[in-house]
């Protein structure tokens, strides 16, 4: 990052640290949600923006993290921090299990198999009532008293999300990140220069699952309860919309996207909850259809490198 970017980041951090002192609790809670969504979307964008892989089932890893944290605290009596640490590990294990099959495929098949895997996780969570409570979810999953106040959990979330995003940034900037971009740009050429394409894609998938699971764990303690809906495919749509709104080619785009998304959600979903998916669908279709030369155009410019030949 350039020194200017660093300066902006430090300024943003100071603002974020001071905000809870001046704004009402409602907005502090909203900021926590934004931070968690930003982490989820940044993890998703590691796949979509930097790996050229669109997953339609990422809610599964978010839900695996959320349910791991909730189950450990509720059923095993594990301390909150330990449960939160286990959340991304279980999600990463899930991502590894499904990823082995998913990354064998490209573009369309990749997206569809990830959707199928996501629905399988949803079905297991939904049907395994004795463990997960099925439709009723798991209630009363709260952090210890020290972190229970909105401001306290806000600072905690900010620290975890901030460190995770820095870690993701380091991943994108590392030799691995560059190799991943090479795989996105031209898998065949990447293979010729000695990059193991499948392995890079699988590692990216697992890393993305890891941080999605961490976001899920953070959300479980924020929400105080977990539900099968977390794994449903509507939920998988959220990081996709966030990334489309923020711009998939920039690393920090999803942060802006998460802010915009949550503000819209606060105004629309709370007012007319049943219209919210309708709105999401329309926004995404509008972005894709009407802005082919916007940030979507950037992705389109490399169409010839993905999948079958493009017809004119």
């Amino acid at each position, binding site marked *: 990052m350039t020194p200017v970017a660093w300066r902006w980041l430090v300024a943003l951090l100071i603002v974020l640290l001071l905000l809870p002192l001046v704004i009402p609790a409602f907005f502090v809670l909203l900021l926590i949600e934004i931070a968690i969504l930003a982490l989820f979307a940044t993890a998703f964008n590691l796949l979509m923006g930097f790996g050229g892989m669109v997953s339609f089932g990422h809610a599964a890893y978010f839900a695996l993290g959320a349910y791991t944290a909730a189950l450990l605290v509720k059923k095993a009596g594990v301390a909150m921090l330990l449960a939160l640490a286990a959340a991304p590990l279980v999600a990463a294990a899930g991502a590894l299990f499904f990823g082995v*099959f998913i990354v064998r495929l490209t573009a369309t098949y990749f997206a569809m*198999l990830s959707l199928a895997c996501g629905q399988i996780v949803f079905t297991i969570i939904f*049907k395994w009532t004795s463990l997960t409570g099925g439709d009723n979810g798991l209630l009363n999953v709260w952090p210890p008293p020290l972190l229970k106040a909105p401001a306290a959990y806000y600072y905690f979330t900010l620290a975890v999300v901030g460190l995770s995003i820095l870690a993701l940034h380091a991943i994108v900037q590392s030799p691995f990140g560059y190799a991943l971009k090479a795989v996105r740009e031209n898998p065949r050429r990447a293979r010729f220069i000695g990059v193991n394409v499948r392995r890079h894609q699988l590692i990216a998938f697992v890393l993305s699952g890891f941080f999605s699971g961490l976001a899920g764990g953070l959300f479980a303690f924020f929400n105080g309860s977990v539900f099968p809906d977390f794994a449903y495919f509507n939920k998988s749509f959220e990081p*996709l919309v966030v990334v489309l709104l923020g711009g998939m080619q920039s690393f920090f785009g999803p942060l802006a996207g998460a802010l915009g998304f949550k503000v819209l959600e606060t105004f629309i979903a709370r007012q007319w909850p049943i219209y919210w998916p309708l709105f*999401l669908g*329309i926004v995404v279709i509008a972005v894709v259809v009407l802005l082919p030369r916007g940030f979507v155009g950037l*992705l*389109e410019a490399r169409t010839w490198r993905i999948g079958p030949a493009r017809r*004119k």
Partner: protein
Amino acid sequence: MEFLAGLFPWITNGPLILVQVMSGLSVGMFLFLVSVGMSLIFGVTRIVNLAHGSFYMVGAYLMVTLIEGLPEHPLRFWGALLLAPLGVAVLGGLIEVALLRRIYGRDPLMQLIVTFGLILIIGTLVLIVWGPDNKSVPRPEALAGSVRILGQPFPSYYLLVLGLAPLVAVCLWLIFYRTRWGMLIRAATVDREMLGALGVDVSRLYTEVFMFASWLAGLGGALAAPTVAVALGMDGDVLITAFVVVVIGGLGSFAGSFISALLVGELQSFGILIIPAISIVLLFALMAVVLVVRPWGLLGRPEE
């Protein structure tokens, strides 16, 4: 054998197995109608229509409305069965003309995102129009009872479905291989530019194919409506299963869709006996095996 019988008490129950086989075949029939449409759209337009499960759901909901709305008459059910899929075909045509026509030739990922967006839009519209409660469709009077097969009761409505299955398959085969329109579809699957260069109105053909495929999905939904609870989650469920069918059979292969739809129907039917709660895991396992051994499906062609 005794071990097996201990594990699965039904395994020595011949008549039960027969009934299970037949209900698996009828589930396979619904799946075939949806997946052959998906396959057809993909073959011609190269778009994977994720909203195809939504068309199936709309077909079932239209059936609910038509049965309630049409006057009491012995032929009411059959009239609804005729009209509901037509309604879905019109819906499909509108979507193709207004939306999908703009994204042919675009990045496949963007096309997927658009059809995924359609799922959300159609799902919400169905919720707004029909409300959140499950609906049910009565079976036609003539087929409301059940017949005994080897002493086991078997709903006679399923016999209709089983009778229709080969009929629809044969009709599709005749359409694809014995009509000019079918020939155009097959030609478009191979080389659309050449077809356009030869003077065929490809744009119109796309719309026709999309409407036909929507009609098939609507027919599947309308036929399935009396056998299931017509509910909001139908779209996702059938999409996932149809996807499994398409992956196993091979995207773009009609015979593959037929064989794998019946296979998946059977697997679902017996999966409920083997691991009742999560029979979908069996499907996934089968799909994973196919993906590892033949990623392009049993009868499909490799990508690229």
